């Protein structure tokens, strides 16, 4: 018992101080994201975009696309607000390029945002891609309690596993540069394959 309590003290100080001293870490490149599921959107256009018709919930690997870009945002985050038009432009750029359109899909997850709050953000900025609520921070906790906005690029593997190929905090200079950064990280040239 004494040994157990002593270990408990050691563990608490070790993990406790570690958590306080270090910056939140996002998903690690080359690894898979922790498991989480999202509710299938009511909007049929979004269901078709994601390829999740006929389901009630889905995971990232269910999305019909080689790659998925996830933006962790919040209605309450000034940078996310400022960058929303650029994100919309990024979405349009991907969709306008026939070589990328079905290869890259984009979603947003509202860290700590309820359905109503996500809807406020969507309406305010006329966001054309699917946004999901994470009102209880459960997904946010799983991916390392990152600050917002945070961008994660996930590539699906042929065996239904997936790998994080992009993991970055903060804004981007322009949608064009962001797309180039992503394609470079994924090893894709515009108009070609990896």
């Amino acid at each position: 018992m004494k040994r157990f309590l002593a270990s408990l003290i050691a563990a608490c100080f070790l993990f406790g101080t570690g958590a306080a001293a270090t910056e939140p870490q996002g998903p690690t490149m080359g690894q898979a994201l922790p498991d989480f599921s999202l509710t299938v959107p009511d909007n049929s256009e979004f269901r078709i975009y994601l390829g999740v018709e006929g389901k009630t919930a889905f995971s990232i690997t269910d999305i019909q696309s080689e790659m998925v870009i996830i933006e962790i945002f919040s209605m309450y985050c000034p940078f996310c607000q400022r960058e929303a038009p650029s994100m919309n432009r990024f979405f349009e750029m991907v969709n306008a390029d026939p070589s990328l359109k079905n290869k890259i899909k984009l979603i947003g997850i509202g860290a700590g945002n309820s359905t109503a709050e996500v809807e406020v953000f969507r309406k305010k900025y006329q966001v054309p891609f699917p946004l999901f609520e994470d009102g209880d921070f459960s997904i946010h906790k799983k991916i390392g309690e990152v600050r917002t906005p945070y961008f994660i690029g996930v590539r699906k593997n042929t065996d239904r596993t997936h790998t994080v190929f992009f993991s970055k905090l903060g804004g981007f200079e322009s949608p064009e540069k962001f797309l180039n950064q992503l394609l470079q990280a994924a090893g894709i040239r515009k108009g070609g394959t990896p």
Partner: protein
Amino acid sequence: MKRLFTLAFFPFLLLLLSGVSFATSEAFKDTIFNPGKLKPVDSVLKVRVGDTAPDFTLANLHRKRISLSSFKGFKNVVLSFVPAAWTPVCSDQWPGYNIVKDLFEMHNSILLGITVDNAPTLFAWTQQMGELWFEVLSDFWPHGATADRYGVLRTDGTSERALFVIDKKGIIRYIDVHDINQRPDFGVLMKELEKLDP
């Protein structure tokens, strides 16, 4: 043995309590003080739904004095008390309200943001949020007097994270003294404002 148990228990409790969730914006990178997990509510309300809202006059960030009574008869008023500048959940709350001016206007309402910080601190903090459309008022001196009149002044001198909805007649229609560690859902506040529509 008892002493060892106590020694083990407190850090374990601290570890459990450290799980406060917030998604601080990158806009506040390296400037936010982490107060840790706080007692959810640390004051006793002095007003109730149905009461006439106590009037107050506080200075905004342009040194203009604003009175609650000046809105009586033509605007619903939402008071948003937040505990302190440069803290995580507070820094995450008003920037959200900053994008919903149209929703407040739709319900003929205005927002007054109040903290017990002094004006220079409030000014520096809110500058990080961009240009705010709503008034930010300093309840610094006499320290927290307005917060105290409503019963939301905590024992450490900060205020609660509290929302009061006051109708055009000056009657309190909704109160949410929220867990200080969490941000209230804006959707709930909107539903309360909808109830005030004629």
